[in-house]
């Protein structure tokens, strides 16, 4: 499936980018396409395009703070988690996403 999402942590220095990396690695190792936008101290990077979002099956927002541009995902299945969870258990999270996605299809 196509996973898109946002990562953002409080300081915007480390957790944001680690969460992105872990999520991408875990997702890709299970055969998904993952695109993550980061909203860190350096501002928005790797911004999601309209096409990315349109073709997404599920949206993951890994954040401890208020993220920008949540309205872009209206109508999509959105899963919001703290960044700490992604850092600790990326594979289990992706497994959970697959489950949510399957339920949605039913």
């Amino acid at each position: 499936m196509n996973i898109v999402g946002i990562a953002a942590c409080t300081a915007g220095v480390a957790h944001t980018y680690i969460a992105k990396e872990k999520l991408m690695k875990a997702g890709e190792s299970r055969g998904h396409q993952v695109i993550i936008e980061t909203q860190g101290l350096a501002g928005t990077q790797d911004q999601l395009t309209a096409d990315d979002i349109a073709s997404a099956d599920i949206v993951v927002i890994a954040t401890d703070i208020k993220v920008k541009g949540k309205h872009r995902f209206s109508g999509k299945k959105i899963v919001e988690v703290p960044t700490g969870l992604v850092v600790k258990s990326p594979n289990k999270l992706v497994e959970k996403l697959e489950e949510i996605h399957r339920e949605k299809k039913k």
Partner: protein
Amino acid sequence: MNIIKKLELKKHMMTAISFFLPIVVAAGFLLAIGNIAGGETIVNFREGFTLADVCTTMGGYGLGLLPMIVATALGFSIADKPGIAPGLIVGMVASGIESGFLGGLVGGYLAGYITKMIIDWMKVPKWAEGLMPTLVIPFLSSLTAGLIMYYFIGTPVIWFTDILKSYLGNLDHSSLFFYGVIIGVLSSIDYGGAINKVVFAFVFTLFSEGIYEPITVLILASMVTPFGMTIAFFFQRLFRKNIYTKMEAETLKTAFPMGICQITEGCFPIVFNDLVKCVIATAVGGGIGGGLSMLWGADSHIPASGMFALPTMTKPLAFIGALVIGSLATAIVLFIIKKEVDPDEERVDFGIAEEEDIDFSDIKIS
């Protein structure tokens, strides 16, 4: 419980902290450099000034802004753009009644939730709909939040900070050490994560009341890990036990200078490879360093910037002493409990089986 969870108090506080951290850092560094160079606050622009004066003055402005920034960011986080106007005004109220950072925090929550309540619950006739965002929401939310601040909340907040101040001002030696340990452990164990930020909000409240020791403990605790890990690197040569892989040793080269500037995050690659043992080593060092720093009365007059805070302290030697002992403690503990590794080993990622189970109450699906 559900209602409290729905309010998302913590998330809003984290957003507020994410907004003001860059300001704290900018203001802290300006103030530190200004003070080192002997700058003074510019009172009259026409009478001339030095570069040092400019730095000191700007740093002072930045720190003075903080109650307002917190209130504004909280307002924005809770009620989006409409929360900014009442947040700014109520933040100024918090400064004006000298309720400091805590006042800004309370005022910001007030401004945000009041604005959100007006947006969500207030129904107006059709002809007045255009007036809502332009006039009613900004005016009514600011007025209501401001009135509550002046008439109800301001006084108790000031009482509370006064009580806290006199309590902390009269601690004996053993309790000083005890509080230092607690602040040191809590602010170091999650490496700049959520716990650290909550502690920061607390010690910054004290800082804005002129109690400088607790925030100094936090500065120190953030530096103990990178310093301790670097010292442990030299231990491995000395005692012929390899605890770092080549890749990990390489990260120390950036982690140490980052540590000087009070940034722990450079150590992450090492920490995540051996989380539990690193946390134990960090907690021991952070606790010991924090306790000693508090006991000896190290006092940074700026709220961040690591080693650069040194010249602003009246007892810089106390800080250095506590930092060295704390870092050594981290280094020794880490060196003892960390397993010997092959320096050429590549980092292996954990499989799914070793991962921690997900706490489903943390997940929000919509």
